[in-house]
């Protein structure tokens, strides 16, 4: 089966194809196809062309004319364009002497402005090139010295070859050198003139009325053409970057091998991640820290910035930052270890001593914080049957502190028989709190944990989970931790919305969690009153929310719990351990103060030494 050639794009297609693969035009029917069927489908013009292809004979002229009359307009246009292209290429291949004559537009462009060009500039450039001793022709010299600066893109050289005098363009042409130079000079005029200045004859009316402007442009163009230094086409002027940008280089640009380094997958041998493989180790990071090769003169570093850099360097390379010798360094490191151990032992003793020796007596605060008093007052006003939602999110590491801080509040709620629902926005929170609640109920014989408490478990989704809880608590936490319908249980049977809770009591060590609760619970139609039990570290950041009235009250840390217990006049863990807590805090404050004094003395001593030495 023979291949088919497309009539439009003249490309070969498979014989079975009906349309051209390339231009999607209908293909002529193959000779193998039954003629009767195919002839019916294709238009007469295609069939004629196909016939011509098959037989190789040219149809008579009248037949061609007839077929041209019948072809559609689009096809005729394509054919016409193709014919023009072929004609041009044929003319190009066998171009005669007359074909190399410049086109009509070139003399027109240069007309009328020859007098205004400073010819000596071009001649000077030509003479300079001749003096340089290069064996280039006048045309080549012209390209290098004049044409490129004028055009700026090196296009003029091509123009010369395409449209210029062949005698000037080709040094091998049998013409005398003088004739060549003259021709090159003429050519230079022709090339320079069309570009600069602008041909005044072709200017629009509005511009031709501004002779001063034209003159200005012309003179500027000439100046550019003559004064611009010759440079290589590929050579670009370097940009003047600001210092800070110069310093921002990709690491690969400075150290090519850096990007190829890979952190080896290994197992840590020491530290808190010991025994765990695939961790990002600090030793690997040190290896990857490469100082980029920068010019230090480009980067302006203030003394404060340099001090910060030194501090960071000390943290990353504690041993290498100093210029001490190894024995001195070992001694210093040993001293640091001793100091660390000393501080730890002192702190441990200060925490243990009050338990062992009952003679220590803490100074009990007589004034209670306003936020604790507010929290107590609010809890006392909660109706007995109305449930409280206890929301928990704290890390296990601070469970001890929060257990002590929340103990008096939970005991107060339990003693008043207030139903409670527990929900946790982190995974571990609800389990820790459930244990604490069970302990609180064991001390109270009047109420049972199962009757008063429902554990709603973990609420996933972070802030979005909070929104869903605020909008529709029944849908947000449908089941208890025992996978039973939570809202059918006794504590929650009368709760349909978040505002049906008497209060939301938040237990957290993170002020951000409290902020999220404040923000999201405020979206409810009737926002529930918020109370909080927070870690001491969150207290300064929680205080503004109490001052603005967004939370009704809060208890912060052990001291807050002590105040609550004193208001209730029921002792607890916070009061029994307050002596130990106070002594440990005082010891820590004393150690910090002593450390500050020692540092001050050391700094002063170093300063005096430097002054004495200098």
């Amino acid at each position: 089966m023979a291949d088919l050639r497309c009539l439009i794009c003249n490309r070969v297609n498979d014989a079975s194809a009906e349309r051209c693969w390339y231009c999607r035009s209908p293909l002529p029917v193959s000779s193998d196809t039954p003629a009767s069927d195919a002839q019916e489908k294709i238009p007469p013009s295609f069939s004629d062309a196909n016939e011509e292809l098959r037989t190789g004979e040219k149809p008579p002229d009248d037949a061609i004319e007839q077929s041209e009359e019948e072809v559609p307009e689009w096809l005729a246009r394509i054919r016409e364009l193709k014919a023009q292209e072929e004609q041009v290429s044929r003319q190009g291949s066998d171009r005669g002497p007359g074909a190399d004559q410049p086109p009509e537009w070139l003399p027109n462009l240069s007309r009328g402005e020859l007098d205004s060009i400073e010819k000596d500039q071009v001649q000077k450039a030509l003479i300079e090139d001749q003096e340089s001793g290069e064996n280039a022709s006048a045309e080549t010299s012209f390209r290098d010295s004049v044409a490129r600066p004028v055009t700026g893109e090196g296009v003029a050289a091509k123009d010369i070859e395409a449209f210029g005098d062949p005698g000037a363009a080709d040094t091998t042409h049998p013409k005398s050198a003088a004739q060549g130079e003259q021709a090159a000079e003429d050519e230079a005029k022709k090339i320079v003139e069309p570009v600069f200045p602008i041909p005044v004859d072709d200017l629009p009316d509005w511009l031709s009325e501004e002779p001063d402007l034209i003159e200005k442009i012309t003179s500027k163009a000439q100046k550019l053409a003559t004064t611009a230094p010759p440079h290589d086409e590929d050579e670009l002027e370097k940009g003047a970057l600001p210092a800070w940008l110069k310093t921002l280089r990709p690491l690969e640009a400075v150290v090519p091998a850096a990007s190829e380094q890979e952190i080896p997958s290994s197992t840590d041998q020491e530290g808190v991640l010991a025994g765990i493989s695939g961790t990002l180790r600090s030793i690997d990071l040190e290896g990857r820290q490469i100082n980029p090769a920068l010019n230090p003169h480009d980067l302006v570093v203030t003394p404060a910035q340099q001090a910060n850099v030194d501090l960071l360097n000390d943290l990353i390379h504690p041993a290498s930052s100093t210029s001490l010798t190894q024995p001195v360094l070992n001694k210093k490191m040993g001293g640091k270890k001793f100091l660390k151990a000393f501080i730890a032992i002192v702190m441990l003793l200060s925490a243990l001593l009050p338990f062992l020796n009952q003679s220590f007596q803490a100074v009990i605060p007589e004034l209670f914080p306003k936020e604790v008093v507010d929290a107590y007052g609010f809890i006392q006003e909660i109706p007995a049957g109305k449930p409280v939602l206890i929301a928990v999110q704290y890390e296990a590491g601070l469970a001890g502190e929060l257990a002590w801080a929340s103990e008096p509040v939970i005991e107060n709620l339990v003693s008043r028989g207030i139903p409670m629902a527990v929900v946790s926005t982190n995974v571990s929170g609800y389990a820790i709190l459930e244990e604490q609640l069970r302990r609180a109920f064991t001390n109270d014989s009047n109420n049972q944990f199962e009757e008063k408490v429902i554990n709603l478990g973990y609420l996933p989704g972070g802030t979005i989970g909070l929104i869903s809880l605020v909008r529709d608590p029944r849908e947000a936490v449908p089941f208890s931790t025992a996978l039973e319908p939570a809202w059918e249980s006794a504590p929650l049977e009368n709760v349909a919305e978040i505002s049906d809770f008497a209060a939301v009591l938040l237990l957290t060590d993170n002020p951000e969690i409290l902020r999220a609760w404040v923000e999201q619970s405020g979206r409810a139609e009737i926002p529930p009153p918020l109370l909080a039990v927070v870690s001491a570290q969150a207290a300064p950041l929680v205080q503004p929310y109490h001052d603005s009235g967004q939370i009704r009250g809060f208890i912060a840390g052990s001291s807050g719990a002590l105040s609550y217990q004193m208001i209730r006049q029921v002792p607890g863990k916070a009061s029994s351990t307050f002596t130990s807590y106070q002594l440990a805090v005082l010891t820590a404050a004393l150690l910090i103060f002593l450390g500050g004094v020692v540092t001050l003395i050391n700094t002063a001593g170093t300063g005096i030494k430097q002054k004495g030495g200098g």
Partner: protein
Amino acid sequence: MTFNTEIVWLVISFILTLAVFSFLLGDNPFFRFVSALLIGITAGYFTVVIIYQVLLARLAVPLLQGSRGTLLPLLLSGLLLMKLSPRLSRWGNPPMALLIGVGAAVAIGGAVLGTLFGQVKGALAFFDVAFSQSGSSRALIMVEAVFFLLGTFTTLFYFHFSARKVKGKEPRRHWSIGALSSIGKVFISVTLGAVFAGVLTATITALVERADFLVTTITAWVR
């Protein structure tokens, strides 16, 4: 002493507490064991909670009850899982975009409505309270309100980093902004000091709580 689970847990807690404290003597196998134990138990516990509290309670049970509303989250979760495969990871982009977009919108909306407006209202409330009082208490509350306002303004000015560029000199802030930011720096320092003190007291509380546990346990055994 009768054998019960509480005593077992007490002994385990005691030993683990001592193992953690052993880090004071430097890195050692006991501390490493406790660290590994904590990480392992936490991972296992998280898995169990996620299965029971999320997958079963919020996905399987509603699906079994015929809830069609769970299908969309299921589909999105499935698409999100495709992030695990480099070839299919682009299918995880829509749920990821949804998560990030919704999360950002919720956070911004909450911050503006909850914190920004709430704190502005709170700052004005000081003056409101001051005007409702009379006598010396009014003056005191007024002083407090002005002090709060000064702290808020100067702290905000501290974070005003724009500077005027002068030829041949380093860019400098206007002297008035510099003065206000210096006052703001004092307020920020006090705040950071308070936060540091809070962190210290929280840590000391944890230490005291563990010390109390050790003493209580030993005392119970001795008796």
